[in-house]
């Protein structure tokens, strides 16, 4: 286990992984309780469009992913809150639309290669020092905002209308939450991949919910599960030369199944 840390890329990958574990589990808790789980999948696919654009024009795919995920998040939230369209239908439209667009852009760029593959499933090899810095700074900001307003997000998740009548600016906080989630997803796709980041946001919380605790304890449990699966997943990714996103998600899936079994009613 110690041996893999001799490599600088592994040190970077673990640092990035731990940042992502914290961000994904904490933001994921609000998303799951808000019954918005599909939002993570959709925004991840939108982020893929950003990656494709980045590969096409030769700029940093991380930045273009953030921009496209944000535009997508705001548009979805706007359609949902102002046009009262069915939320799940909007998410489905954006999910498949984004994937189609991403494939076309990537094909035009002639970049349907290993580079895209690493963005789909995550790769610990591709994490640069600059990526870690970007994750640290913007992930840190996202986490601070999330913690600053956690009681508002929690109240809205529990009862949106009562929150509104008690003076919480529900529309503002809904936009803020999807903004934070879009940023976190875009930052995470290097390590976890666009197809798998949704799982890391949703599953730790669902596993934690099986223990039937209050909100504060549920978040801590989700955070613990998330960190454990990132450590186990990245270690096995290194030893078995597998995509890190896939091994992380398998680890968190096992935690979920164990939680389900030991807490069965």
């Amino acid at each position: 286990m110690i041996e893999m840390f001799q490599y600088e890329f592994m040190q970077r990958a673990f640092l990035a992984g731990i940042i992502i574990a914290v961000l994904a589990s904490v933001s994921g808790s609000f998303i799951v309780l808000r019954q918005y789980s599909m939002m993570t999948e959709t925004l991840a696919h939108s982020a893929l469009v950003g990656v494709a654009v980045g590969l096409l024009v030769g700029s940093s795919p991380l930045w273009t992913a953030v921009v496209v995920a944000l535009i997508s998040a705001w548009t979805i939230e706007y359609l949902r809150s102002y046009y009262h369209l069915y939320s799940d239908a909007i998410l489905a439209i954006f999910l498949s639309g984004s994937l189609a667009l991403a494939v076309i852009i990537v094909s035009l760029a002639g970049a349907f290669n290993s580079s895209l593959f690493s963005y789909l499933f995550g790769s610990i090899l591709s994490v640069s020092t600059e990526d870690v810095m970007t994750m640290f700074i913007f992930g840190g900001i996202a986490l601070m905002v999330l913690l600053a307003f956690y009681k508002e997000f929690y109240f809205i998740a529990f009862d949106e209308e009562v929150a509104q009548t008690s003076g919480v600016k529900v529309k503002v906080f809904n936009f803020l939450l999807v903004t934070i989630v879009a940023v976190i997803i875009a930052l995470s796709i290097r390590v976890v991949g666009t197809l798998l980041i949704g799982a890391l946001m949703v599953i730790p919380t669902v596993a934690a919910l099986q223990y039937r605790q209050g909100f504060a304890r549920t978040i801590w449990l989700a955070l613990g599960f998330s960190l454990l699966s990132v450590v186990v997943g990245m270690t096995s990714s290194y030893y078995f030369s597998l995509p890190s996103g896939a091994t992380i998600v398998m680890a968190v899936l096992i935690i979920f199944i164990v939680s389900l079994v030991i807490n069965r009613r």
Partner: protein
Amino acid sequence: MTFDVPVFDVKNLMLTINEQTILENISLQIHKGEYTALIGPNGGGKTTLIRLLLGLQKANSGEIRLFGVLQKDFQNWDKIGYVPQRAAQVDLNFPATVLEVVMMGRTAKRGFFGREREEDVLAVEEAMQKMDVTHLKARLIGTLSGGQRQRVMIARALASKPEVLILDEPNTGVDIVSQQRFYALLRELNSKEKLTILFITHDIGVIADDIGRLLTVNQSLLTCNDPKEAMSCAEMSKLYGIDAHLLHNHHHH
């Protein structure tokens, strides 16, 4: 009659949805300290009227003032506690202890990072005591009975120290004994705490002796200032859509 500013001042409220009239020509004043029940047939617009008062829905025309301030400019929402109809039917898997739910009532008053100040803790303890849920504070909301959950939701509304309490059919899914206890509690909140109370109910027989004023909504609004007379009121019977005398007799058996 006092000259204080009415808590709710509604003028000529009109709401149509898809060319169907839901509410028309609603004018209404509710003053501080009043204890008012809102009755009417299903689909008559009771819940809609409450939602309009709370700004959850917009009327086509008319004016609503809260504490003398036009609704769109109103900021002091913590003065109004609201317990919605489905309060007793929360998501049973939601990870929330009773304490966490009641603390939600302080959300708008707490600062950044949700720091709990002493006044927040005191207000929450006081609200839990009033509603007799202190002994349940570590329990998960999903493990409570309907009546207990209802009391927790009211404790949450009370935690912001409101001046008005609005309840939409607070007794849905609550047993008879809890209901009677519950109405005794409402009466106490109104008389001792001087809380203005407005609530929707179907249990007109149970509460007719207590309430100060009865409002009947069936598209339009009718006020009976003496609820004891309400039952023999012919218009009330017509608006309520059932035989009022039957209901009255039932109450006395």
